[in-house]
């Protein structure tokens, strides 16, 4: 009791000079809420769009400025600093992830803002509170009402995503996890068309997400019981010294892993992914598939490399099993899918497995030769490559439509190559990138991750991963065959002409997928400069 009474509260010191990219995003989100409250309905869309895009650009400029001026940490061993009383680590990997998130969010905002495809309104429910199929809903849609709240919700989610991998203690990480998840649950339920499955996706995502974050939290509590602190550096020290009870450590580690692996969509915690990806509005799916994955992998890497790095021999077998299971389940079940969004969801599960392969082969900077990149850096590169291809692919999915809106059943995609050769060609290119064909970003990403895993000693897993890539290539190629070499059923699909917004998204996605495949060196160099996590 005495020790508690002596503890004092220090007023926190916030280094605004290093944290402002994060604060800009949260600030924009709050201003967005005010815009909803005070601007007339007609001006909100433009105001929100300008505000969001402006905030993302300002934050990205901030990230570049902060990255150019990082102090050295631990006698020059690495660059970065730990800010906000030990809560946030602003280091190379954090800044790399921030930059990637901001660029990918920028092109996702453009998808959110697309209005031409639905005839002058966004793809989000006109009035979410109106029941599907009622007079109130018809009235809202005939008046062209739309929910511009999606923009502030998205900005809150981006803020949470930036905070999540940069958190330097488990409590901040838990708060960031919720800040990124709660807006996403809502966004999933806001589709304009097919509202029943959209609401169902939101319910499933919410219940399973809340369940998994409870596991994360209990894991945090047990690790706190083990180490006496939630700071990653203190946990690392306690793990090295093996002071506390190892039961607490192992149980806590397992529960933490459940929470984090749920967010990355790794088996056996992947069950939500196909349902949510299929039911959510496609723009939200695009955003989630790229950005949530980056943020969650950043956090997973930080917890397991920085906090629990000394307990590597305890968690490595678990990660081996999960990596193998994830890519096998993702690749094999995707073969039987008949819905394009569901198939892409299983493909994203398979990719999570490939990325965890890189995490298993722990290749640290000290052991790596001059030209090699560490597992952290290869994973960062893979995430960026996958993010651009994924957003691009889902953006193409929004274009293929029939009378009822987007048509995602695979049989309706037959003959798309004749109807719209360019759109089908671009989609085929994204699929080839997912499959990892040379000259696409997918190949470079897989190469980087697999070589670092191989030199880290995880060669059986790399062999399995290569095998699973072959299985995965089968269903990607099957879609290409359906698009180009089969006859359309009935009228066949129509490909809507999008406005400049979606066009920019698809173009950027395709260009980056090609550039990262042909000349990956600049981004690989950037990932190498990001260095390692600071402790």
């Amino acid at each position, binding site marked *: 009791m005495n020790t508690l009474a002596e503890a004092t509260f220090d007023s926190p010191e916030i280094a605004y000079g290093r944290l402002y990219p994060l604060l800009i995003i949260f600030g924009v989100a709050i201003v967005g809420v005010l815009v909803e409250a005070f601007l007339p309905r007609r001006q909100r869309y433009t105001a929100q769009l300008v505000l969001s895009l402006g905030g993302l650009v300002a934050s990205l400029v901030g990230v570049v400025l902060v990255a150019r001026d990082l102090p050295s940490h631990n006698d020059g061993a690495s660059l970065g600093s730990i800010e906000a009383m030990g809560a946030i680590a602003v280091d190379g990997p954090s800044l790399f992830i921030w930059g990637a998130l901001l660029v990918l969010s920028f092109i996702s905002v453009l998808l959110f803002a697309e209005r031409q495809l639905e005839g002058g309104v966004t793809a989000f429910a006109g009035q979410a509170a109106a029941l599907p199929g009622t007079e109130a809903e018809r009235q809202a849609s005939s008046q062209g009402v739309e929910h511009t709240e999606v923009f502030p919700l998205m900005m809150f989610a981006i803020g949470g995503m930036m905070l999540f991998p940069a958190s330097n203690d488990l409590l901040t990480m838990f708060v960031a996890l919720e800040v990124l998840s709660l807006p996403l649950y809502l966004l999933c339920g806001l589709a304009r068309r097919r509202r029943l499955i959209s609401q169902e996706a939101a319910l499933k995502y919410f219940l399973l997400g809340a369940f998994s974050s409870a596991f994360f*939290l209990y894991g945090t509590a047990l690790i*706190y019981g083990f180490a006496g602190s939630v700071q990653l550096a203190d946990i690392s020290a306690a793990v090295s010294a093996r002071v506390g009870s190892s039961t607490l450590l192992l149980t806590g580690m397992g529960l933490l892993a459940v929470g984090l692996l749920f967010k990355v969509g790794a088996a056996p915690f992947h069950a939500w992914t196909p349902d949510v990806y299929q039911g959510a509005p496609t723009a939200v799916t695009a955003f989630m598939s790229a950005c949530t994955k980056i943020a969650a992998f950043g956090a997973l890497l930080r917890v397991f490399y920085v906090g629990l790095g000394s307990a590597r021999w305890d968690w490595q077998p678990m990660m081996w099993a999960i990596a193998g299971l994830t890519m096998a389940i993702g690749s094999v079940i995707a073969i039987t899918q008949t819905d394009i969004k569901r198939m892409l969801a299983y493909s994203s599960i398979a990719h999570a497995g490939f990325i965890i392969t890189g995490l298993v082969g722990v290749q640290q900077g000290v052991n790596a030769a001059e030209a090699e990149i560490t597992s952290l850096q290869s994973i960062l590169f893979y995430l960026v490559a996958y993010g651009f291809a994924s957003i691009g692919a889902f953006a193409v999915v929004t274009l293929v439509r029939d009378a009822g809106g987007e048509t995602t059943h695979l049989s309706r995609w037959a003959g798309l190559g004749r109807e719209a050769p360019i759109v089908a060609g671009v989609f085929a290119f994204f699929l080839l990138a997912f499959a990892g064909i040379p000259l696409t970003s997918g190949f470079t990403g897989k190469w980087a991750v697999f070589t670092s895993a191989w030199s880290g000693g995880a060669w059986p897993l790399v062999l399995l991963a290569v095998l699973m890539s072959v299985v995965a290539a089968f269903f990607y190629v099957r879609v290409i065959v359906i698009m180009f070499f089969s006859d359309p059923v009935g009228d066949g699909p129509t490909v809507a002409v999008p406005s400049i917004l979606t066009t920019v998204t698809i173009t950027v996605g395709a260009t980056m997928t090609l550039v990262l495949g042909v000349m990956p060196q600049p981004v690989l160099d950037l990932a190498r400069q990001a260095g390692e996590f600071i402790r």
Partner: protein
Amino acid sequence: MSVTPFLVLSALLFSIGAIGVLVRRNAIVVFMCVELMLNASNLAFVAFARQHGNLDGQIAAFFVMVVAAAEVVVGLAIIMTIFRTRRSASVDDASLLKY
């Protein structure tokens, strides 16, 4: 005073919550079970704070309460919407998305 009884209670509450999420059918009850799991974590945090003699765990409990309140807002909104659409809050009825 030993903190072990509190930790045992917290583990029990957490398990009851986790089992409840898996076996109950009503979305509201499932959600209440999740809240029970969060509160079990709070109890563990506070018990460990006493054991280690520092305040981190108690502060964590406050943060968790705030987060849980925010989660309730979002969760009940989603459950309400689906209840009004389907006239049912059973998680078994929401089964359009499968395979």
